[in-house]
Structures are given as structure tokens and as C-alpha cells.
């Protein structure tokens, strides 16, 4: 991988150089501030595959730099690992919200850093092999529906990256987020899943572009309706979103689902050809993340996913197979 590390502490940059020297598959470029990093990026002939960013830097912080990178086409989904001596959940939440992929706590063990870079390398390799999610997101922004309707394919079960929605992060970033946070940091948080009802029907009858639009709009509705509570949302595939919500142990799920559905209804969602869509979500059971960490926290995300999908299946069985696209379709 071609890596850019930005940290105002030269010792950190030297340590990174030392680690990467032992990994011939990587090449490291360093900068001591964001201004220098931007100059380095502008002067490069080939794009970087990964960024290692300190959070706390004078003038422009690593979090602000992450936002700058995410606003560029080239680095919209490039892995960004935050290097932080700050264990505060608030900094970590801000980093993930800005688009960070993962974070490494300083001081770091050299072997551990090597391991984390290898994981990122796998992610980069996978994306090169199968660029569909970011491809889909790019299409959404840049191309007209007529241009892409026959080109884009979206796998129903794939955790697609949804871009440019506040509070919505990539699914693997969500897994990193819950895996890395300490038990203490997670103890006030709950995990909760929402599934778009009749998602298989929607996937079957909508164009990939329209399907992506629905996912994006619903993610925005969920993220906005969870405010003002601190939240992170990711799309886990099969019409299901998993959310980590802070300080919501006694969340009124029924009321929240009503709020989200009202919000979605107010969006007047329709297909590219103008056909109205009646999109509704349902929620699974919430579970607290206290005592969960590492694999246990990932398991909690999977359980939230399954629980939301089970609710959707149950509602489908109870209400019959309602066609969600208006009869005018």
C-alpha cells in the first residue's frame, strides 16, 4: 500500500517509518501537518491507498482533515486510520462520524500496528477486486439515472457504503468502532437494527439506482430521527441498518419507528419514473453494549441485524405480502 501518515510528533512518524520498513509491500510518505499533507497529495502522481492521521494537531486536526479527504472524489472511501492518544469516546465518535475507518491508540505496540495495516491491506485488495459499493455511490452522485440504470448492479445482501449522510458510516467501520471501544466507553450505548420492509420485493422491482436512492434516503431518516442522541448508523445489507446509540437504554422503539416512518413518508419517495413508493421500516430489539467488547460487540451488531429482519418477516407473515410499490407501477 502507498500510505500517507500525518502527525505533528516526529517521533511517531519515525516509529511508523520503522514499522513500515519491515513490511516491503508498503511505502510510507509522511507530513507533520495538514497543510504539508495537502501539498504532498497535490504533488503525487499515484493516489494513496491508506492514511494514518493523528487526531490532535495544531491548526487543522486529523478529524477535519478526514472530512476534507472524504469530500474529494479520490479519497471518498480510502481507509483512514486515526492515531490517537485520546481514549475519550467523544474524539473517537467524532473521528468515525467524519469518515474514519478505524483507530489505533497511542502508544501502540509495533506488532499490533503491523497487524492492523495487514487488515487494511486486505480491505484495499478486496475493494480493488470488487469495487461495487463505492462505484454505486459514485454513480448516485455523478450520473443521470438513464445512464446507469443498465450498468449498476447492487447485491441485496451486500453491506453497501452510503456516502454523504451525517452519522452514517461504512459497515466495516462500525465493526471497528464497537470492537475498539472499551467496555467502559460502550456501557452507555445500545445497539439497534432497522429493516426496510419488503426489501426483497423492492430490490427485485426497482432499478439499482432507485434501490440505492432508497437506502440513502432511509439511512438519512434513521440518522436524523435518532438525533439529538449521539448515534452512528451503518448499512449492513438486506435492507437492514444497524445503529449504535449513546445513552438510550430506555429507548421507546415503537415511538421511534413511528417517527422514522413519518419522516420517510414526508420525503415523498418515488422511482425515477415518478412512481410513488411506500417505504416503511421496522425495528428489532435493542440491546445494551455493556459487557460487550471485541467479538462480543460484533456479535451484538449481528444480533441487532437478525432481530430487525425477524421483525420484518413477522410483520410480512402477519400482514400478508403487501406490494409496496403503488399500483400505478
Amino acid at each position, binding site marked *: 500500500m502507498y500510505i500517507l501518515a500525518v502527525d505533528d*510528533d516526529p*517521533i*511517531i512518524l*519515525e*516509529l511508523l517509518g520503522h514499522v513500515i520498513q519491515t513490511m516491503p509491500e508498503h511505502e510510507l510518505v509522511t507530513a507533520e501537518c495538514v497543510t504539508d499533507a495537502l501539498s504532498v497529495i497535490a504533488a503525487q502522481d499515484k493516489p494513496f491507498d491508506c492514511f494514518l492521521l493523528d487526531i490532535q494537531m495544531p491548526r487543522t486536526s486529523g478529524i477535519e482533515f478526514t472530512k476534507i479527504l472524504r469530500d474529494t472524489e479520490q479519497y471518498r472511501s480510502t481507509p483512514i486510520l486515526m492515531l490517537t*492518544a485520546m481514549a475519550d469516546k467523544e474524539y473517537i465518535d467524532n473521528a468515525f462520524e467524519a469518515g474514519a475507518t478505524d483507530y489505533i491508540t*497511542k*502508544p501502540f*505496540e509495533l506488532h499490533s500496528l503491523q497487524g492492523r495495516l495487514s487488515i487494511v491491506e486486505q480491505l484495499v485488495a478486496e475493494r480493488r477486486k470488487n469495487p461495487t459499493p463505492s462505484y454505486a455511490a459514485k454513480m448516485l452522485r455523478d450520473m443521470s439515472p438513464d445512464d446507469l440504470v443498465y450498468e449498476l448492479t447492487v447485491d441485496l445482501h451486500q453491506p453497501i457504503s452510503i456516502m454523504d449522510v451525517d452519522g452514517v458510516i461504512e459497515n466495516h467501520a462500525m465493526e471497528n468502532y464497537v470492537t475498539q471501544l472499551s467496555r467502559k466507553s460502550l456501557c452507555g450505548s445500545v445497539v439497534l437494527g432497522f429493516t426496510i420492509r419488503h426489501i426483497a420485493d423492492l430490490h427485485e422491482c426497482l432499478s439499482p439506482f432507485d434501490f440505492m436512492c432508497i437506502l440513502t434516503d432511509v439511512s438519512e431518516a434513521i440518522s436524523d430521527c435518532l438525533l439529538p442522541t449521539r448515534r452512528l448508523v451503518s448499512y449492513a445489507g438486506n435492507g437492514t441498518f444497524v445503529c449504535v446509540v449513546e445513552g438510550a437504554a430506555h429507548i421507546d422503539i415503537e415511538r421511534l419507528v413511528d417517527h422514522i416512518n413519518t419522516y420517510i413518508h414526508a420525503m415523498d419517495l418515488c422511482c425515477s419514473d415518478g412512481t410513488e413508493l411506500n417505504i416503511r421500516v421496522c425495528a428489532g430489539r435493542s440491546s445494551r453494549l455493556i459487557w460487550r467488547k471485541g467479538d462480543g460487540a460484533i456479535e451484538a451488531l449481528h444480533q441487532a441485524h437478525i432481530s430487525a429482519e425477524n421483525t420484518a418477516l413477522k410483520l410480512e407473515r402477519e400482514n400478508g405480502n403487501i406490494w409496496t410499490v403503488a399500483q400505478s407501477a
Partner: protein
Amino acid sequence: MSNPAPNDSLAPIRNRFLEMLEDRQVDIQRDLELALNEQETAAEALARIEGVLHKISGTAGTLGYAALGEGARVAEYAIASDREASTQPSTALFMQIIDVLEMTMDITSQDIEPRIA
């Protein structure tokens, strides 16, 4: 400077860290005196100390000085916590910073050797 073990590949970086630690020690001492003696600029002086402690806590552990890193982290958090609570810096806070200073002195004078993994 430290006497590195023969297979200590981090020795060059550690030596640079120790050189910088001497400078950082001077910076902390100067700002600590300012914080203690000049109430008007105490907040700014403590913010500068916090920044230096932040850097020490980020690398000391990796280079074999885990106790220094932990002490710097605790003092850094104590400064941040006092600032957020808008309280006057306490004697306990100054003592924490002095503890870190003493550790940096012991390390730079080689009274404390690094723990090399």
C-alpha cells in the same frame, strides 16, 4: 542517552526521543513556573504543558518508558478535566505535572533504563 541492547532496533528513535525529552522538560518547567506565578496566563501555560504531555504519552510507552507515558497521560487528562470544569488549577494537578517532570529527569539522566521488549 540510553545504552541500547545490541538487537534494539528502536535505539535510534529512542535516542531522538530522549533528546527531545530534554527540550520538553525545559518547556514544561518554564510553563509550570508561569502557571504557578502568573494567574493571568496560567490557562495558556497549562494548555502548552498539556500539548507536550500529549506527545510524551503518545510515544513513551512504545519506546520502553511505559510509566512515563502513563504519568503524562494522567497529568494531561487532569489538566483537561480542570479546564472543562473551569476550576482553578489545584495543588494536586501541579504535583502530577511535577511527578512527570521528575520522571523525565530520571530518564534523561539515565537513572531509569527503558524496558525493551
